[in-house]
């Protein structure tokens, strides 16, 4: 799957499942500081990503996701091995 498709789908999930502001979402946006996602929100984000892309994201990998771009890269890496 191309990164642009992942980005489009992730953006939809962030808006519909996490209720984030579509205008603030870009690759460099930080979930905690730019998008106001709290610790439970991060867990919701991981669940939503797992459901949307059919991947498993263990805790040690989840720790490295801070920005939207990092989330896209992680999914991209998992889907294109």
């Amino acid at each position: 799957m191309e990164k642009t498709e992942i980005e489009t789908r992730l953006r939809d999930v962030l808006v519909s499942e996490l209720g984030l502001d579509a205008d603030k979402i870009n690759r460099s946006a930080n979930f905690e500081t730019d998008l106001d996602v709290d610790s439970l929100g991060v867990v919701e984000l991981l669940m939503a990503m797992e459901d949307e892309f059919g991947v498993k994201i263990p805790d040690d990998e989840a720790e490295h996701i801070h920005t939207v771009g990092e989330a896209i890269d992680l999914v991209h890496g998992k889907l294109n091995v």
Partner: protein
Amino acid sequence: MVRTALVTGASRGIGRAIAFALARDGHQVGVNFSSSSGPAADVVAEIEAAGGKAIALGADVSDAAAVDAMFTEAAAQLGPVEILVNNAGITADNLLLRMTPEDFDRVLAVNLRSAFLCSRLAVKAMLRARWGRIISIASVAGIAGNPGQANYAASKAGLIGFTKSVAKEVGSRGITANVVAPGFINTDMTEGLGAEVKESVLGSISLGRFGEAAEVAAAVAFLASEAAGYITGQVLAVEGGLAL
């Protein structure tokens, strides 16, 4: 609003009364049991006869795989669970010096681990819905302690700490978690108490009688309602004035 409820250990006693109360409030109910399939089917039939919707769900709630399968089945047939009642419970009483590690572990697993296993699955759907009710049935024994019930009281006290933690974790998403702590209620569980024990217990109950399962169920139905939306992390004792 019609919600999907799941009541563990709803084939008999207090759980059965809770299933009826939630159905009467218009909710669809998953009626869990472990071995009493006949009684569970009767509960379902009685709810259906009154115009409600219910299904029986067999699962040992201390078993993670069985709980997973139960939630999958409930979601497929009734939709995601939005009201979870952790009611299934057992006793294996003995004085500490006579209590075996097996009896300790079994009681903790059925009474406390079950609440963890069920709640973590239920919360997933509740987060999506931005609404949820988790109600766990503890006991006055978990608050005051009771000789011969170190395992049981520990499991019930554990439910209280568990509930308060969950309430803090998910409160921001419109999900409440509360405990109902019954005193002495007329069910199979208390039927085995000797006449002497019953007599001495009655003396310390302000209302002078044991409670009925329906009286516990009424408290649960209230906590499950929209009206109780601002109540979370609380322990509601339904014990006839035992601890006054």
